[in-house]
Structure formats: C-alpha cells, structure tokens
C-alpha cells in the first residue's frame, strides 16, 4: 500500500464538561481545551502501525476547519504522520460537504486507505466515513476493533450491537475506528521539534470547488433535562425497601 489518509478533527477535549450558553445560542467553547477527536487519534495510531509493519509507505493527516486546527495537525505529525493538509473551512461545515471535500483530496492523493474516527465527539454525527465511502463508490468498514491488510484487501472486525462482525473489503476503502482498536502512543518532546519541519499544506475549501449541500439549520441549543439526586440508603435492607416502595420489585 502506498498512502493512508487519516482525518483529524479538532474538538473540545473529552474531559471538558461542555455547557450550553445561557442565551441558548450554542455551547461554550471559549477558552476550553481543544484536542484531536479521540477516535481520530486511534485512526492515526493504526495508520502508523500499518506503516511501521512495512505495509504502507506514507501517512497523511488532514483536518478541515479553522487555522487553529494546525495545532492538531502538528500533534499528528509529532505522533509520526509524514505530512499534513489543512482545508480551511467556515465554522460548522456540514458532514456531506466535509465528505465532498475529502473526496476532492482523495482525487488528488489517491490513497489506498482512508482511516477516520467513527464519530466526532462534539456533534456525535457518526456520518463522515460512511458518506465518503458512498461518494467514492468504495467499501466501508465502520466501528473497527481489528484491521488486517493483505495485498488489495483488508479484513476488519467491527463492533456491532450483536457482538463482533468480520468483513472483508477490497482496497481502496474507508475504515472508521472504534475505541478498542489500539491505544495511541504518547508524543515525545523531540518528536514535537521534528514535526515542525514536516510539510503542512493549507488549502481553502473554495479551492476544492465542491457542490453546496442542503444544510440542516441549527436553531436552538438547550441543556439536557437534569436527573435530580435521589435518596441514599444505609444498607441492603434499605435498598430493598426503597425498590419495593417504587414498585420495582
């Protein structure tokens, strides 16, 4: 395999407890810690391992978003990616347009494998990989917990509701990662220095001339209904009594 393309989305770090702005106009993202989407870190780790096994020559990371996403791309380069592409887009570009933009990059780069996360933990959409595979007319293997490559095919184990499903797909293809695929490596300081010299190309989404997609309008944001703190019981007898009280046993 020649090239693997990996999507890295810049998202609010998973440890941040996100709050809705008091006027309901969005969520509070000012000053909060931003990171690589955790699933994308796993995707990159997997790409690096495939390259380190000698089964791929080059790993390219790509992010779509504001110029701030350079930070996440630099982290990706420090983890070991060979080069990076930033596609500058307006705030909140929709998943279909993202998939169309990725397809344009695929047309330029001809990767053998595209590795994305199964979902971005901000919008929780879980769409981009499937959409990209559809537009590309290629196989998809979503929610991967194990990936093996052999020549022109990949064998992927997927975490599905019923258990573990294994499928075989022809390459090129899109694979999206689940959490148990691997544990991403830590970035070491010397790698951060080295990463500064690696190439990072910037394009604007207009350069890619993608068709405009029908966009879903987000009209209001609200906090979820809160569950109230209930009662504490002292012992098992108290628990059984409380359950009886509620008619649950």
């Amino acid at each position, binding site marked *: 395999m020649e090239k693997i393309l990996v999507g890295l989305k810049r998202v609010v770090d*998973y440890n941040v*407890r*996100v*709050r*809705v702005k008091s006027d309901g106009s969005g*969520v509070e993202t000012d000053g909060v810690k931003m990171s690589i989407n955790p699933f994308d870190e796993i995707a990159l780790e997997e790409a690096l391992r495939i390259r380190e096994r000698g089964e791929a020559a080059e790993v390219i990371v790509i992010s779509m978003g504001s110029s701030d996403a350079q930070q996440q791309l630099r982290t990706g380069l420090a983890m070991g990616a060979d080069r990076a592409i930033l596609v500058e887009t307006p705030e909140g570009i*929709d998943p*279909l347009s993202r*998939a169309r933009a990725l397809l344009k990059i695929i047309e330029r780069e001809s990767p053998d494998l595209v590795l994305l996360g199964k979902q971005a*933990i*901000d919008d*929780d959409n*879980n*769409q981009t990989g*499937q*959409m990209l*595979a*559809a*537009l590309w007319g290629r*196989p*998809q*293997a*979503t*929610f991967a*917990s194990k990936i093996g490559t052999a020549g022109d095919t990949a064998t992927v184990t997927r*975490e*599905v*509701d*019923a*258990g*573990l*499903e*294994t*499928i*075989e*797909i022809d390459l090129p293809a899109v694979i999206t990662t689940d*959490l*148990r695929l691997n544990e991403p490596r830590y970035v070491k300081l010397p790698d951060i220095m080295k990463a500064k010299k690696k190439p990072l190309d910037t394009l604007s989404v207009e350069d890619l001339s993608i068709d405009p*997609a*029908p966009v*879903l*309008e*987000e009209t*209001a*944001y*609200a*906090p*979820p209904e809160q*569950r109230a*703190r*209930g*009662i504490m019981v002292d*012992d098992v*007898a108290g*628990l*059984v009594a409380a*359950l009886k009280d*509620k008619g*649950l*046993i």
Partner: protein
Amino acid sequence: MAKVLLVAEHDGDTLNPSTAKCARCAADIESAEIHVAVFAEEPSAVAAQAAALDGVAKVLTVANAANARPLAAVMAPQLVELAADYDYVLGPSTTFGKDLMPRVAALLGVNQISDIMSVEGPLTFKRPIYAGNAIVTVTAPADSKLVATVRTASYSAVASGDSAPVESVDVEAEIPGHTRFVELQTGSSDRPDLQTAARVVSGGRALASSENFDIIYKLADTMGAGVGASRAAVDAGYVPNEMQVGQTGKIIAPDLYLAIGISGAIQHLTGIKDAGTIVAINKDEEAPIFEVADIGLVGDLFNVVPELTEALS
C-alpha cells in the same frame, strides 16, 4: 401526506425491536404514511412481523441472497432506489442504522439527522450533541428528502397486532461485490437483551476480573435482568464489547438500572439518562454516579451484591 420509509433491522428471522421504536417516532411526523422495507435473503417471516406493527401501512420486501447479511454498501443503493417515492427515510441509531443511513444520505445528496430524540415539526427535530450535554434543534430544508436515524432509547416500541399488506419489489440497483461478510461472533446468552430489557444490572472496573463478574450475573438472573458494563470493564476484558453501555456503547432506557462499581463518567451516563430508576452501589460516596442516582448505597460491592442477591431470591 408525508410518505415515510423505515428500514427494518433484523437477523434473518426476527425483527429487531428497534424497528417498532422507529415506527413510534415516524408516527409523530404529521400525517405520516409509514412503510417498512425489509431486505433479506428470504424476507417473509420478518415481513410478517413488520406488517403487524401498529401504524405500518405497507411492507416492501426485497429478496436477494446478497441481502442475507446487512452490509451497508450492498443495501444502500437498493434503499436509495426505493427512497425515490418517499419524503422521509428513517433507520434506527443502532450500529446497523448508523452504518447504513449516512451512506444512503450521501447517495441522495443530503445531510443526515442523527439520533432524533423528538419530532418538533414536519422538518424540525431535537437531537443530542456533546455526549448528551446539549440538545440541539435542527430544521431540514423543505425541498429535499429527509434521511435520519432515530435514537431508539427515546421511543417505546409500537404495539403489534395489525396486518398491513406485504408487497415484494424488484430493484435494479447494481450490487457491489467489494464488501464480503466473513463471520459474526455473538456471545449467546439466555438473558434479556440489553437494549430492550426492563431491568439492567451493570458492572464496572471495580469488579476487577471476569470471574468476579459472576456476582453481577447472579444478581441479574435473580432479577430477570439484562447485563451491561462500563467501558473500563470491557476494555479490561471482563466482558465482551456488546455489553458496553454509554456514548460509544449502547444507549438504553430500562425501567430499572443498577450501576455497580461504576464511577459515573459522563460517557457512561449518556447511555442511561432515560432509565426509569437508577440505583448506584459504590464504595466512594463522592462518586459522580450518586449525582444522578435515584437510590444510592455506599458500600463494598463484594459484600453488598451477594447480600442483595440473597435478599431478592
């Protein structure tokens, strides 16, 4: 009239309850006429179950050996062909629907609404974002098809008892050969299914081994409950992945949920916020799980759980 097509989820023999939950959501769309599409090798048994769902006006079956397994790349072009006659195309936000529906949306040239939790108008819906920390209202454009997944934990299943007509249809869509099913490993169990069980007992990292998880199974069996787990317990290999509850596992809404030795991380809570009653057993009185528990008990699970099992049997 709004023409709604639901894609049936099934295992070849039995309709998954997620379809009856989607039917409940579809019925909230103003003047909906609901049809169900069944893709299978031999669809008749599943079609009969779908035809029985309240509110379903018609069932379309597409019989094809290629449809023996639910491969998104195989099903999507067929579903797109059927979608020509519909305004809405809905699937469940189970791993089946999450895999398939965005592929369909992209082929139809539209964005997808993921995880509908309520229908607010013909084109307006609510859905959770940021692991359920915010609920956003989205409105789809009027002049395109609407493709969406339904957050099944937000809906109860419609009843069964009707009998809608079943129509076999031929589709011309070219079926790709680039994606091939190899195998499905399922932990076969006689316990109630996690996603539909009225009671669920879940264990966390505190169980510390798969042997120790036995006390969770014993309690669950005493209560007739399904069994779940936190991600930490799955990652550590105490239980298989299909038992994970949470943002990236299963989103469930049992009447009664017992969280045992689970701290209550936001990603876990996302999976249980629609539960009727949450019981937490944890030795740390500061554990965040107690902030959402209806009944909390501070104690060592290795004493409490056997005692509770005893008290309930």
